[in-house]
């Protein structure tokens, strides 16, 4: 997995490449925790761009869910961008559709934080 960190206004966009599976997912966890740490008052605003992600397993989904709850608890917000077939099915199966805000357009995702 590769992650690049971009900024648009005060929103952080994480572009992810490859697989969010197994121990790979720890990179994502660490990157998200870093973003929480450096955010003003730890209120992180994160867009997770999944466009280039081939597969997410239960471990990867767990990392995303844990990020969601910990960011939420601190008053921040994380949304998903470009949730493709595979990952969408996963979220549906895990009954998490109502939990995650999902966008197919980056500007919309960023604007949703205003």
């Amino acid at each position, binding site marked *: 997995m590769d992650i690049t960190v971009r900024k648009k206004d005060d929103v952080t966009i994480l572009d992810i490449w490859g697989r969010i*599976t197994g121990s790979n997912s720890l990179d994502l966890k660490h990157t998200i925790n870093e973003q929480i740490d450096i955010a003003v008052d730890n209120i992180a605003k994160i867009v997770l761009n999944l466009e280039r992600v081939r*597969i997410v397993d239960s471990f990867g989904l767990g990392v995303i869910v844990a990020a969601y709850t910990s960011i939420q608890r601190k008053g921040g917000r994380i949304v998903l961008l470009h949730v493709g077939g595979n990952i969408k099915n996963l979220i549906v199966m895990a009954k998490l559709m109502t939990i995650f805000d999902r966008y197919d357009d980056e500007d919309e995702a960023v604007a949703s934080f205003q």
Partner: protein
Amino acid sequence: MDRTPDELVICLDIPSSMQLIYVLDSVISEIVREMGFDEESREQVNLAVIEAGSNAIKHGNKEDVNKRAHFEFILIQDKLTVVVQDGGAGFDRENVENPLEPANLLKSSGRGIFLMETCMDTVKYEARGTTVRMVKYK
């Protein structure tokens, strides 16, 4: 072992390192592609096999690289059977909680077994839970 004549058995055996899941991923991806499963089924089998492999490596063999995770892919016409074996202590399926219970919904783990059972047509636990046998029909 007795094999029916048109059965093809592919065996893969790897050290218990999560770093090697990519090998399992590539083998199962190609098998379901060559067998002609539709895209949704391909993703389902792929996910289930990665979950079973991760469980064997993490929960079964505790990521001890001296212990091995063994995989058998049994191809018969429209039926794919995947057997995953580890050298661990096993577990009892009955004790695994349902991740769809409201209290479990936002937990960061506990979805692997559920996903395997959702994605495959049948999932059986053998040898005290050290072996999982999963079937998917085309």
